[in-house]
């Protein structure tokens, strides 16, 4: 159980300079495909929202794709994933079907929650995805509970608990950190720092802006990761998973990332400049990074176009299904309250 405290524990703070380990061509192609799927899916969701086919709140993941895709590459079957309300990317990365996710967004019976949950509340027991939670920070205690169950059962599964820089200021996060370290629970806290909690920048809301240090008073190691580079995410995920499976307790990964769109669909995003968004998009886009590396390594335009086409087909089919699938039967109003 007690693996020696390795580098990952000591390296709180900024990652050392230098490129992260390279991925194989197959891994790069898979990362590209999975990230593209999320991006195209989210663009389509935005479009359907604009058409009125999706209602309520809709939080898009565009810009942050490398985080979930990189982390997922580090996991194995049985590891659990839980997140907040910006959850479409996590579900797709977990292997949930685009059709079912999109149909939930449109509130149809073929959605993952039969249309009763919506954008923020979707689950898949089969894919070990535990939601989709609309209360900021609640998933942190829940994800710690998933890790508790793993420890109770003595299996070696790891709970990957995602939350944002905004949720990182909630009290129950620290209550959970305390118990997780106290009981050495196998949980990776992935803090997706996209710089803004709705319209409030990290600097206006956080006394300690280095989120990798947020576990310091509980002796939870943490590190900052370039969340725009899928290679860096995967490498950090690999180390964190090994740390947890080794019985060392929880670990924090601060993913430095960026969301291109507003907080939700109705957010005009006036708290930041268009230049800021454009700069990240131009210099750090997670998908372009992989595409450029693949092109540099001699991947053919044709291969990449084939991926584009495959992804577009999946997304279009999902959108089509989500708009034609019937709404839930009225009799569903009173089902699933008790079992």
């Amino acid at each position: 159980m007690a693996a020696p405290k390795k580098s990952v524990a000591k390296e709180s703070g900024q990652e050392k300079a230098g490129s992260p380990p390279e991925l194989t061509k197959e891994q790069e192609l898979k990362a590209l495909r999975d990230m593209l799927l999320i991006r195209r899916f989210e663009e389509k969701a935005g479009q359907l929202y604009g058409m009125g086919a999706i209602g309520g709140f809709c939080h898009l993941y565009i810009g942050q794709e490398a985080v979930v895709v990189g982390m997922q590459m580090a996991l194995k079957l049985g590891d659990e994933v839980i997140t907040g309300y910006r959850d479409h990317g996590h579900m797709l990365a977990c292997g949930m079907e685009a059709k079912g996710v999109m149909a939930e967004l449109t509130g149809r019976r073929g959605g993952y929650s039969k249309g009763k949950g919506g954008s923020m509340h979707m689950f898949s027991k089969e894919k070990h995805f535990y939601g989709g939670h609309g209360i900021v920070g609640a998933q942190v205690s829940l994800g710690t509970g998933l890790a508790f169950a793993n420890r109770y059962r003595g299996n070696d599964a790891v709970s990957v608990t995602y939350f944002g820089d905004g949720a990182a200021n909630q009290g129950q996060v620290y209550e959970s950190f305390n118990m997780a370290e106290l009981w050495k629970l196998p949980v990776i806290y992935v803090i997706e720092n996209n710089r803004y909690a709705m319209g409030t920048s990290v600097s206006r809301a956080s006394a300690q802006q280095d989120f990798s240090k947020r576990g310091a008073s509980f002796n939870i190691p943490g590190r900052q990761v370039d969340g725009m580079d899928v290679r860096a995410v995967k490498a950090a995920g690999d180390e964190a998973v090994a740390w947890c499976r080794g019985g060392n307790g929880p670990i924090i990964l601060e993913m430095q990332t960026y969301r291109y769109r507003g907080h939700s669909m109705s957010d005009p995003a006036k708290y930041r400049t268009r230049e800021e968004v454009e700069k990240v998009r131009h210099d750090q886009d997670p998908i372009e990074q992989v595409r450029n590396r693949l092109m540099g390594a001699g991947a053919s335009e044709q291969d990449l176009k084939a991926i584009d086409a495959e992804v577009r087909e999946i997304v279009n089919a999902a959108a089509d299904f989500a708009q034609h699938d019937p709404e839930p039967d009225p009799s569903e109003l009173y089902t699933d309250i008790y079992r």
Partner: protein
Amino acid sequence: MPIQVLMPALSPTMEKGNLAKWLKKEGETIKSGDVIAEIETDKATMEVEATDEGTLGKILIAEGTADVAVNTPIATILVDGESAADLAKAPAAPAPPKAAEVAAPAEAKAEAPQPKSDAKAPAAPAAVAPPDPEIPAGTEMVTQTIREALRDAMAEEMRRDGDVFVMGEEVAEYQGAYKVTQGLLQEFGARRVIDTPITEHGFAGVGVGAAMAGLKPIVEFMTWNFAMQAIDQIINSAAKTLYMSGGQMGCSIVFRGPNGAAARVAAQHSQDYTAWYSQVPGLKVVAPYSAADYKGLLKAAIRDPNPVIFLENEVLYGHTGEVPKLPDFIVPIGKARVARAGKDVTIVSWSMGMSYALKAAEELAKEGIEAEVIDLRTIRPMDTETIIASVKKTGRAVTVEEGWQQSGVGAEVAARIMEQAFDYLDAPVARVSGKDVPMPYAANLEKLALPSVAEVVEAAKAVSYR
């Protein structure tokens, strides 16, 4: 075929907006994600991003146009290999497809899949209360305290099912703040009897997460007053997840601990939360009075696949009662018990309120009024049938609770009687409750703040016109 760009809805309530500005010109290349126009809504100016790649073919709505309805085509994008000559091919009015209407095809007139506001909600399913278990004649009865009955219930269920564990403040080494978990650590060990830090919100969430993963936690709150720190996890996570997941992910969990007033602990430690939790679909709410019911209902709660709020009473912990000595004594959730039969007036209560109700019934009997006392035991789902059957017989009803009156459980009972037995009532339903004040500390004021036997007697006489 060219793609039409539609006027987007940019908030949950937007129906129209002003096309403030075009940022791309006809003929310009567009990439997915490019900002192509600015739109003013009633709240803000928003940017419209392209979701398709190609060339801006034609601008259909000029900048400066006000009140453009959502879903109006505003521009056309030409994709790979298309030219201006293809513009004519764009569909005239590409309204989003409708949801396949199954319930009421005749209503399918809306262009966009709007909810059918005039659709009638189906009837709520009626709760069917299961019968009490048969206790075979000659069953040995054991006299024990409610504290012991609770402990035995947990121990029996923990022996039966390895997924059941108990967590909370001081439940293990201290043996329980009120000694309800006495001996459990010794029998089951620290893996299954878990002392938590003082962190109600956090450990309630950890419990719910463990339950989502399939374990069956018993989460003890030292008192329900402290569970206000955790109420978000109880309601938003435990109660709602089954519904929000379309039935996929439930939560078999018991939240238990002492509720309501103890003695001389003042306002922050004396609140009754029965009415609060009883309002929430997805929760079951149990508040027993007798030792046998404490045991049988806690066992039922632990086995129940839903989140159960198990409200105990600190004053009652030391009270003794007869508990049948059976290998598996289960009292079904959702079934009230007629604790005392009578024909003149119905008194409905639960938990500590029963002590006032039963004593009042004795007093009333001395004056020739035979009260029927109903112990609800479960508040949600409520056994309305038993209440109504009694009121149809007596024509009069009094509710008794320690909690506050406004929106209280007594108010709910009175409403159900009014709805279902109005013609049988000979008098308005009376409510005896805790007074509408925070619990005072001074002994005399505390006594005044709580219901009393005298108040119950008085109310029963009033509805009997005696």
